[in-house]
């Protein structure tokens, strides 16, 4: 009860709050923690399992994965910044429609940009670019993080979450491209222009296409393996941490003074 009144009285004195925020650039969280959350501990693709539809749908080659990864990253960052900027003006009741409209406009921008500069890739990715708007990561970060934090940490969080997503997308894309077609970095010029024309690495000569890896069921299998590997690494880290801690004493601490001790 006392705390509540304190909060209520604190609200009108907004400038004081802003001052505190300014003092520590990232509010109550350190930049390292945000980065660690986005890249590993709370990775949107491996832990939250958000945005599986594009993740599994387009990760059949590195160029597709990288294209969609960058697009998603830009949308998350942009929407996080915009949501954070207007977080004091938007009330709870209308926040979701507002977020969705912001995200939709950013997605439209990205779509038009891709249509202008990477037309071939735009045609390959097709429906998955407009579908970025339905990617749960973006709305999730807007609602859970950006609407409660100042601009700079929100932007950094968006960048790190998008980067974590893009990283897994590219990793999955490279595995599937390698196993499915036996190449790496094929037709990267669709995304990066003529510089990347000769980047294709043919890992296996005369490789027979392994269609399973290119089709969606393969994506599920390889995604499962990636999650399993992450869990194994987490377990190893946890075990190492426990081993470093001093072992807790087991058993009774009372000293036995009667009877025979055998």
């Amino acid at each position, binding site marked *: 009860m006392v705390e509540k009144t304190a909060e209520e009285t604190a609200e009108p004195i907004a400038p004081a709050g802003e001052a505190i925020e300014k003092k520590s650039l990232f509010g109550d969280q350190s930049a390292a923690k945000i980065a660690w959350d986005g890249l590993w501990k709370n990775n949107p693709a491996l832990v939250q399992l958000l945005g599986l539809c594009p993740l599994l749908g387009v990760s059949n080659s590195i160029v597709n994965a990288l294209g969609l990864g960058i697009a998603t990253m830009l949308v998350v960052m942009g929407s996080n910044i915009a949501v954070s900027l207007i977080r004091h003006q938007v009330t709870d009741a209308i926040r979701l429609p507002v977020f969705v409209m912001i995200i939709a406009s950013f997605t439209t921008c990205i779509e038009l940009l891709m249509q202008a500069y990477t037309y071939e890739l735009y045609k390959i990715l097709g429906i998955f670019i407009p579908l970025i708007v339905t990617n749960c990561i973006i709305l999730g970060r807007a609602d859970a993080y950006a609407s409660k934090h100042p601009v700079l940490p929100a932007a950094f969080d968006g960048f790190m979450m998008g980067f974590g997503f893009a990283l897994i997308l590219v990793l999955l894309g490279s595995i599937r491209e390698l196993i499915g077609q036996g190449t790496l970095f094929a037709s990267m010029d669709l995304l990066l222009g003529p510089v990347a024309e000769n980047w294709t690495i043919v890992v296996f000569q005369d490789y*027979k296409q*392994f*269609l*399973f*890896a290119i*089709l969606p*069921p393969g994506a599920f*299998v390889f995604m499962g393996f990636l999650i399993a590997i992450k869990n194994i690494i987490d377990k190893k880290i946890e075990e190492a941490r426990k081993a470093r801690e001093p072992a807790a004493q087991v058993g009774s601490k009372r000293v036995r003074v009667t009877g025979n001790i055998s």
Partner: protein
Amino acid sequence: MALVRQTSPHARGPNSTQQVMKLVLLAAMPGLAMQTIFFGWGTLINVVWCVLIALASEALILKIRKRPLSFYLSDGTAMVTALLLALALPPLVPWWLTMIGVSFAIIIGKQLYGGLGNNPFNPAMLGYVLLLISFPAEMTQWLPPSGIEGHPPVNGFMEALNSIFPLFGQGVNVDAISMATPLDIVRENSSLTINELWAENPVLQSFGGKSWIWINVAYLAGGLFLLYRRVFTWHAPVGMLAALFIMSTLFWGGTGSASHGSPLFHLFSGATMLGAFFIITDPVSSATSVRGRLIFGGCIGVLVYVIRAWGGYPDGVAFATLLMNMAAPMIDYYTQPRTYGHDKPKKGLPKTD
């Protein structure tokens, strides 16, 4: 000396996993022999190669999972999986293709789900479907059965061995001599009546042309033997064959060019009998209740016919089995038998609130 006190029952039943698997292997032998007679040594080489890979991959995963090796390897389930997959493959598929299929079936289809008894899908069919969608060209190259004029069969052992393992020498060009199966021919036909089609294709006429019928009869015999030994009940096979029969009678289409083939043609073509007696009777991945097995088999029969007649593949036993494997738990929930002392059987999921 410590005497281990055992509780009853003390009877040593004949239905250990090992014993059942031995019977299944034995019952598949007539079919294997028929396939070898008609398609040469390739099938036999495939079976041996598949069993070797299955045992090796099973041993590898058991070692990683720290399970006792000899206990699980000697129960014969990996061998049955390998055998069924090998029987479903075209006779001269290259060695690496078999290796991918069998190791996928054992490692991902069986062991990653928790090993024997925990796999929701039939491992052999999972491996087969993986190969079918990944390498459609190799997986549809069936050899001409021996005994057909104008199509020299691959009879030599070395010929077959070299075609499967090109490391040792040059084998036959499978692509050049491969031939459509009767199911393919009827499926692709759109202009000839059935009588004209029969006249046009020697594969459907001579002794060799009836090869698929003989193979199916052999599997039927093996399956009846297993029924006689009570390895499984009659419900699933009868359900499947009856449903296939009804469907192929209803949508027969007579002898015109739009015909899908007669009911007998469907019962004795492709993998019908192998599927009905050896694949859908898998005790792990099929439905468990008596009525459930009838429904399970019936739905598979319907699906097989739907895929054969209107689907994209000439045969559909593998796809139908996998689809119904997914539905098996739900079938079981709704077909629980009435237990003694209760008026009504329990149906559906237990209520949670």
